[in-house]
């Protein structure tokens, strides 16, 4: 063991171990891209989330053409017109004589086409809105709601669990009964009930905040119970007694000497909880209780796919589900990797001789 290695703090060691985990790093970069696209949705997307054109209902993905009569030209799209076939099904006919060139860095957007042309990279929804744009605008809601909810329920869970475990006795008893009150109701139904208690005339910001709070209220209890169990054993450590003999205030002892020891567990749980909150938000929105149309979220985008007919004729409306899947997967893999990285008992996570 050389001196350079010896001087690393635990966080540095854990980060180094995390970086060595290829799958986790891949997931990290995938999430970084998803969050990046969400943040820059205004630029990246060709249309705003409510830019609709009913003439293009369920228009299939538009192919971007690069070749015209065998020559490389500036990328363009062909005109499409809506017709109906013999069975009265929508059929978009490509008109190879009318072309709309792609305009880059136009009107504050990375790429778009001039009207009356429409560019549907990943197809359109029932009202002719661009699914590509709506997915990245929706990512803003779906990806942030999990993080915010987790921030609140972790602050609550860690603090309440830490306090209950550290003090024990009646404090512990009262706080744990409170946790059990939240845990005994099945999560999804508690969520529905809480959501029902929210006034229906809320605007979308208020709905967003109430969904965050609802998610946070559901998640903190199980975390608090486990942190409490860990705190019960950690408070017997000599250095906790030592801190007490030095008159360090209880809250400082809980925050600095007890909670950091739970990091390998809480890091993993944090990531798993983010993903379960993303799913919970999607669940609320799918049944129409989350963020309301026209504001998109991955959940309410998927609610279009609740009936079978659109899914058969416009399978691209399932795409938001794919992104939910990717985001949830990535958070889970990262959570797993972080737990290993912070756990000195796991092979390869700590100092390599």
């Amino acid at each position, binding site marked *: 063991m050389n001196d350079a290695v010896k001087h690393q703090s635990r966080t540095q060691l854990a980060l180094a171990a995390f970086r060595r985990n290829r799958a986790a790093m891949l997931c990290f970069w995938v999430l970084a891209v998803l969050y990046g696209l969400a943040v820059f949705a205004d630029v990246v997307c060709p249309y705003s989330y409510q830019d609709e054109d009913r003439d293009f209902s369920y228009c299939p993905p538009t192919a971007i053409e690069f070749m015209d009569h065998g020559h490389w030209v500036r990328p363009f799209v062909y005109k499409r017109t809506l017709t109906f076939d013999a069975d009265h099904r929508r059929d978009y006919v490509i008109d190879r004589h009318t072309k709309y060139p792609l305009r880059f860095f136009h009107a504050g957007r990375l790429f778009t086409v001039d009207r009356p042309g429409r560019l549907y990279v990943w197809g359109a929804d029932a009202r002719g809105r661009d699914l590509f744009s709506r997915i990245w605008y929706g990512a803003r809601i779906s990806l942030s709601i999990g993080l915010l909810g987790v921030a609140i329920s972790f602050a609550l869970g860690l603090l309440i669990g830490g306090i209950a475990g550290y003090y024990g006795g009646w404090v512990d008893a009262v706080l744990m009964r409170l946790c059990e009150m939240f845990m005994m109701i099945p999560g999804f139904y508690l969520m529905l009930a809480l959501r029902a208690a929210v006034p229906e005339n809320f605007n979308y910001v208020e709905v967003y905040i109430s969904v965050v709070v609802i998610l946070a209220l559901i998640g903190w209890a199980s975390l608090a119970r486990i942190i409490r169990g860990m705190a019960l054993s950690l408070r017997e450590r000599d250095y906790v007694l030592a801190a*007490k*003999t030095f*008159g*360090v205030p209880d809250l400082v002892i809980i925050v600095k000497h007890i909670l950091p020891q739970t990091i390998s567990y809480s890091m993993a749980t944090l990531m798993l909880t983010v993903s379960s909150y993303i799913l919970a938000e999607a669940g609320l929105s799918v049944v129409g209780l989350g963020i309301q149309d026209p504001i998109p979220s991955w959940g309410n985008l998927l609610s279009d796919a609740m009936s079978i007919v659109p899914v058969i004729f416009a399978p691209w409306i399932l795409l938001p589900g794919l992104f939910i899947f990717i985001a949830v997967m990535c958070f889970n893999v990262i959570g797993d990797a972080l737990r290993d990285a912070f756990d000195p008992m796991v092979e390869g996570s700590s100092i390599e001789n």
Partner: protein
Amino acid sequence: MSNFDPLLSLEELTVKAGKKTLVDRVSFNVPRGGIVAVAGGSGSGKTTIGLSLLRLLPCALRIRQGRMVFEGRDLLGLSDEEMRRVRGARIGMVFQEPLSALDPLFTIGGQMDEVLAAHTALSKQERHKKILSALDEVGLPDPQRAYRSFPHQLSGGMRQRASVAQAIVTGPSLIIADEPASSLDVTLQAKIMELFIRLKRKNIAILLIAHDLAMIARLADEIVVLCKGQAVEQGPVSKVMADPLHEYTKALLEAAV
């Protein structure tokens, strides 16, 4: 309060766990700048006395009787918050095993800073200076380096010095040292004893909880011999050691030779 009053005066301290008596009417005084040793085998209640003084007994143990007058105030009459301000600020503690008494996740400097921050309104720089001078005072060769070190990076002797530094950084008048040298080898024990003598010269009183009579003979002025929670013999060290009256003291002395 006159200067002749003892710094700490324990009167008839009784600690019970349920019906079982762990400390039975123990009384002794610790003068300012004096070293008083509490000796006894394991289970004799000596650590219980140390923790009673700080009111940090495990919840099953209760102080049933007695007074603990420290700097003119009965510690048993203080509120929890007043008691917290005594701990660390007026009474420091040194533990047997410094490696487990120091949080492995924090540097020595960080842990000492926490104690100072809990008791003083000093700025970050002032605290830093104070910590370095405390680390220097306990004889750590490179205080700057010790400040930045994690507990596992220091040797056993240096760790124990660091934990003594943590106990004196706020300038307390009493240090409770619970078997401070038992985890160290003989040469390091001698160094820690020298350190305690230096602290004594600075008018810091020490309540030495130990079973090692050789160490007590070198350091302490007075001795209280505990057996099954009772103070079976107490008085000046030289007198008790030269002429033990109680069987248990004799047995302890024989075991030490």
